[in-house]
């Protein structure tokens, strides 16, 4: 008999006033008892709408059935068939708009906590799993993967399982992409990312760091070196600025720089060399998940006032509801329907404040969102010494400009068809490099599809 409790079994969390002073994980995860209880809320329905909501098609009812029986390792094996990074997905996926958004239990009450259960199972396996990971029987074919973010790691993992010899080329000194430089420790502990990547290496994936494709090797040279196909998962790492006065002052960061210093370079930790500004008051411009991450990091670094400055209203915010909620609990101040017009100079080249203007919402634009319009004469100055621009990113042009025959659209995103094939033979692409900044799980879905396409391409070529 299913557990008909209307709400999800709550997950323990660090208290807001405690956690906003440390970088430890906010959500603490289920105990086995909690997982059993939550797993029993799943109705095991026959049409399984949750599975269609998952971009990598995790067999959700099957793994939850195993959890309900207390067979946690069995549950892990079900997830691992289709998902290379379950400990990551269980933490950072926007489940409300994916698997859980389609859950039958969600029609009247709260959906089953699929993400929490996936996380529990993956963490349990990391702590208790004993199975030896073995490399698959080699099939004699080589594939190169550019970038080591979620799309690339998924593509590499799937290809390795099929027996391909996979080399991943990463520009940074650590693999993981946005999972290591972007998403902070308090949402996704780096130890977990490292363990997931370690698993891929045990499967035979060769990860080479400090390799900037386009500089050390071009895509064409990779083919000359004997790779039969190339997957490009180089992401969308080029930050946008607003082009307003004062953006080059000291104390103005792109969210990418701010988060890279903190997450990748550990600027918040004693004993690491990379510096970061100690701020009193911080304005983060933007309303996405990256803006929430930057604001919550600034708070943890000791800033008294941290503002989210967003030109639309909360309803239009692209960030996950849960992240907005967490940010508010931690004391982040939301300045909605506000837009910066210039950043003020203290006379020595540092930020002395940010002049903003109030906005109101007009008619919906082409994207369906109501267009913000300035309220004339509503200018005011926000008292801040640091400004973090988090208004989006676009794909880095390095690879497309050094690869002949690789076409991109006006926004610089690589053009790929439904099978993730680009305009150049043997070259596949996926994730943010194709879509522009999107989510981890969509990137993983694209990496998965590309792996299948690459397999088919190489098999057909042989004939």
């Amino acid at each position: 008999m299913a557990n008909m409790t209307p709400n999800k079994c709550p997950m323990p969390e660090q208290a807001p006033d405690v956690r906003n002073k440390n970088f430890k994980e906010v959500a603490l995860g289920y105990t086995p008892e909690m997982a059993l209880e939550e797993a029993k809320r799943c109705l095991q329905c026959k049409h399984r709408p949750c599975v269609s909501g998952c971009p990598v098609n995790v067999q959700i009812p099957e793994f939850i059935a195993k959890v309900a029986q207390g067979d946690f390792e069995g549950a892990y094996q079900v997830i691992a068939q289709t998902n290379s990074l379950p400990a990551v997905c269980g933490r950072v996926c926007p489940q409300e708009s994916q698997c859980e958004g389609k859950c039958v239990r969600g029609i009247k009450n709260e959906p089953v906590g699929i993400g929490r259960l996936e996380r529990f199972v993956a963490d349990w396996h990391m702590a208790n799993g004993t199975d030896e990971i073995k490399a698959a029987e080699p099939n004699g074919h080589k594939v190169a993967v550019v970038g080591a973010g979620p799309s690339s790691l998924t593509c590499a993992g799937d290809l390795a399982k099929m027996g391909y010899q996979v080399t991943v080329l990463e520009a940074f000194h650590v693999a993981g992409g946005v999972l290591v430089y972007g998403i902070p420790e308090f949402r996704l502990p780096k130890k977990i990312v490292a363990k997931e990547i370690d698993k891929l290496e045990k499967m035979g994936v060769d990860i080479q760091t400090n390799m900037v494709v386009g500089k050390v090797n071009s895509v064409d040279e990779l083919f000359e070196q004997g790779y039969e196909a190339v997957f490009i998962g180089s992401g969308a790492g080029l930050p946008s600025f607003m082009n307003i006065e004062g953006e080059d002052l000291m104390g103005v960061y792109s969210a990418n720089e701010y988060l890279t210093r903190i997450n990748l370079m550990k600027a918040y930790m004693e004993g690491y060399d990379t510096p970061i500004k100690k701020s009193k008051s911080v304005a983060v411009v933007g309303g996405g998940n990256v803006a929430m991450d930057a604001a919550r990091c600034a708070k943890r670094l000791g800033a008294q006032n941290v503002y989210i400055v967003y030109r639309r209203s909360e309803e239009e915010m692209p960030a996950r509801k849960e992240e907005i909620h967490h940010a508010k609990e931690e004391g982040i101040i939301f300045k909605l329907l506000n837009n910066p017009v210039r950043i003020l100079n203290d006379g020595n080249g540092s930020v002395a404040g940010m002049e903003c203007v109030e906005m109101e919402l007009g008619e919906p634009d082409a994207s369906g969102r109501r267009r913000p319009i300035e309220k004339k004469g509503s200018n005011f100055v926000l008292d801040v010494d640091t400004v973090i621009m988090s208004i989006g990113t676009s794909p880095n042009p390095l690879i497309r400009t050094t690869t002949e025959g690789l076409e991109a659209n006006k926004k610089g995103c690589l053009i790929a068809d439904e099978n993730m094939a680009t305009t150049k033979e043997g070259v596949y692409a996926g994730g943010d490099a194709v879509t522009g900044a999107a989510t981890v799980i969509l990137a993983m879905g694209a990496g998965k599809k590309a792996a299948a396409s690459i397999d088919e391409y190489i098999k057909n070529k042989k004939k």
Partner: protein
Amino acid sequence: MYKIVKKRRLNDAVTLMEVQAPHIAKKAQAGQFIIFRVDEHGERVPLTIADYDREKGTVTIIFQIVGASTKLLNQLEEGDDILDFVGPLGTPTHFGEVKKVCVIGGGVGCAIAYPQAKALHNMGVEVDLIAGFRSKDIVILEEEMKAVSKHLYITTDDGSYGEKGFVTDKLKSLIEAGAGYDLVIAIGPVVMMKFVSKTTEPYGIKTLVSLNPIMVDGTGMCGGCRVKVGGETKFACVDGPDFDGHKVDFDELMQRNTIYKQREQHDSEHVCRLTGGKRHG
């Protein structure tokens, strides 16, 4: 891990290292740079590629010991490894169609001016080199520079070696005497590059400078290295580091480079005082 195959002290504060990095050596071109990270706790620091040997697979860097990271790097010896070494980064220098070029190096900037002069020399271009130092005891690479230039002019601020005065004085007198340069390349402290650019501007001589803003990734993903050139914001790590000296906002660059000054000083003293330079495991 990247092995140091050669280490040579050029003067008390400047060290040359040849590092095993075949994939970088294969592709490096004049004007490009690398980023190193000395160990697990290290920061990412950019250094211009001073030379490369495609056959031996080595890349040469020359650095001034100015802060914690360069102190730590300088403590490594031949046979030791640098943890991370990535490149070649940046856009190679575009010299264009030139016949007679004046290359100017300021202090440790000579380490970077030298390979530029060498590249031009190898292209068959006539090269004059002006190398400016504070005093005699810090003069570096004199023989090397002499070998790739038609004239090498050394200046010292105090007159203890070569001609007394600044590189700009020498440059101005050469231009006035009708040297007929069609390109000037200046590499050194920002203030020196600024005044070289000011010197050449009235004569309309094209002037290239190699900028050295603060960097993190060096691949164009953070914008920490942004500089204003001709009123537009550029990322020095991908659009540069070379820019038209007549268009660069040098004052803004000098200011931006001071943002972590206090912290840098603290770290640098810390490395000396507490650890004797070596980091605890």
